[in-house]
């Protein structure tokens, strides 16, 4: 099994989740994070609202899903397709990380293996 961790723009979250489901993903988890990549951050008002300051890191959403190995390409494609905002090269659209999961267990049944995530 593989773990896919995708960091995406928060406003794209529901789009990406729908794309995951369409790609056959049965389970996912997501949460709010703050992050920095190449993106330059944003100007925000500071103090009593008289001037702007620079905030380096931005709100993002982390979407995590564990999938069977064979779904990898489909899932990554689904994420890219739904999370990308514009012309190639637009920074801030996010990153996808893939890593190994040794084992998964469904709490309700105790079953393990690929069937828990299919």
């Amino acid at each position, binding site marked *: 099994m593989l773990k896919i961790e995708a960091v995406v723009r928060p406003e794209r979250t529901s789009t990406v989740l729908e794309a995951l489901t369409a790609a056959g993903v049965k389970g996912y988890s997501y949460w709010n994070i703050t992050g920095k990549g190449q993106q330059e951050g944003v*100007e*925000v*008002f*500071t*103090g*009593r*609202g*008289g*001037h*702007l*300051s*620079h*905030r380096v890191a931005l709100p993002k959403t982390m979407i995590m899903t564990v999938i069977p190995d064979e779904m990898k390409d489909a899932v990554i494609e689904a994420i890219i397709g739904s999370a990308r905002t514009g012309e190639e090269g637009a920074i801030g659209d996010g990153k996808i990380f893939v890593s190994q999961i040794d084992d998964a267990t469904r709490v309700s049944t105790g079953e393990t293996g690929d069937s828990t995530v299919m």
Partner: protein
Amino acid sequence: MDTGSIAWMLTATLLVLFMTPGLAFFYGGLVRGRNVVSTLMYSFIAMGVASIVWVLWGYSLAFNDTGNGIVGGLEFIGLSNVSYTEGDGIPDLLFAAFQMTFAIITPALITGAFVERFKFTTYLIFLVLWVTLVYAPVCHWVWGGGWIGGLDGGALDFAGGTVVHINAGIAAVAAAYLVGKRRNPGVEPHNVPFVVLGAAILWIGWFGFNAGSQLAADGVAVQAFVNTNTAAAVAAVVWALLSFIHTGRISAVGVATGVVAGLVAVTPAAGWVGTMGSFAIGLGAGIICHYAVHFEILHKLGIDDSLEVFAVHGLGGIWGALATGIFAWGALTDTAGGLVNGNAGHFVANLIAVVVTLLYSGIVSFVILFVLDKIPGLGLRISAGDEDIGIDITAHGERGTVADGAD
């Protein structure tokens, strides 16, 4: 006794009292999340401590006029000899209660200068000393029969521009200087809705402040009412426009600050200028306070007046005091009026009041805090470790909000 005026003054007293929790939320929204409880408590506890000081001796020191011009007597200790049935239009005891609410909010205003790092226990003692040694005398000078109220030319402070705002604004500078800079001020206010809530409560409560200072439900109170709103509205919109011009965005915190700036500036003038006078005062306040905040004047001097108390209340108050001398309307003041009517008397008297208050409050506040800092076991500042963790958990054993799965 006029029941209509009593009814209005009971209400006005509550309105001003409600301003202190309003301030608590205004300030509380501006700090970092880990210091919200502390920031709320600086204001909220003033409702306890300053009330007690006022009842026990503060009112007496401020308003028991014994003719020396400097400080009141002790006849009203514990509010004894303050009639609940007799008085000038309203019972004396109601006047004492109304004035109490000013003695509560004034020290609370100062706290914006030292949030996120000032030791709470020391603050409790500071509250007692400051109300006694700074607030009560200045209040006596201006309103209690003291020397400022008696100045030739006539110092005009309708609702407390000098007594409350300049007084708190300069004390804030002293406090910010002595307590030192925040270790890590963060970037943004942690809760803008709290700021807006606080601003709304302050705006509403300020009508008690200004229209209540007429001490009667009459036409002047109505004029003060309209002036209060006009100055606030104008300053808010001015700030919005300046914000847009400089940044392309319109800061909600900025608009809220504009509201407060307008309210501060119109305070000394409330019942003594016409509607368009208050318009001009709001305009000036919006511009002056916006640029004071924009250019971070005190911060550039190395003074971390964290929530810009001086820029808003100090400068706003000074502008208001001088503007009162400019725009005072003879028909309302029963005098020759302000500079616009060709009379410089009020302007000069107000200038003197401003300078003396800046000096007296600045120096005495400094001394009080300096001494508190040196007393073993007290001190102004929490430890660096406690500041890093956040003063909510270290001084209050609480977190503002708890939202983890296990709660």
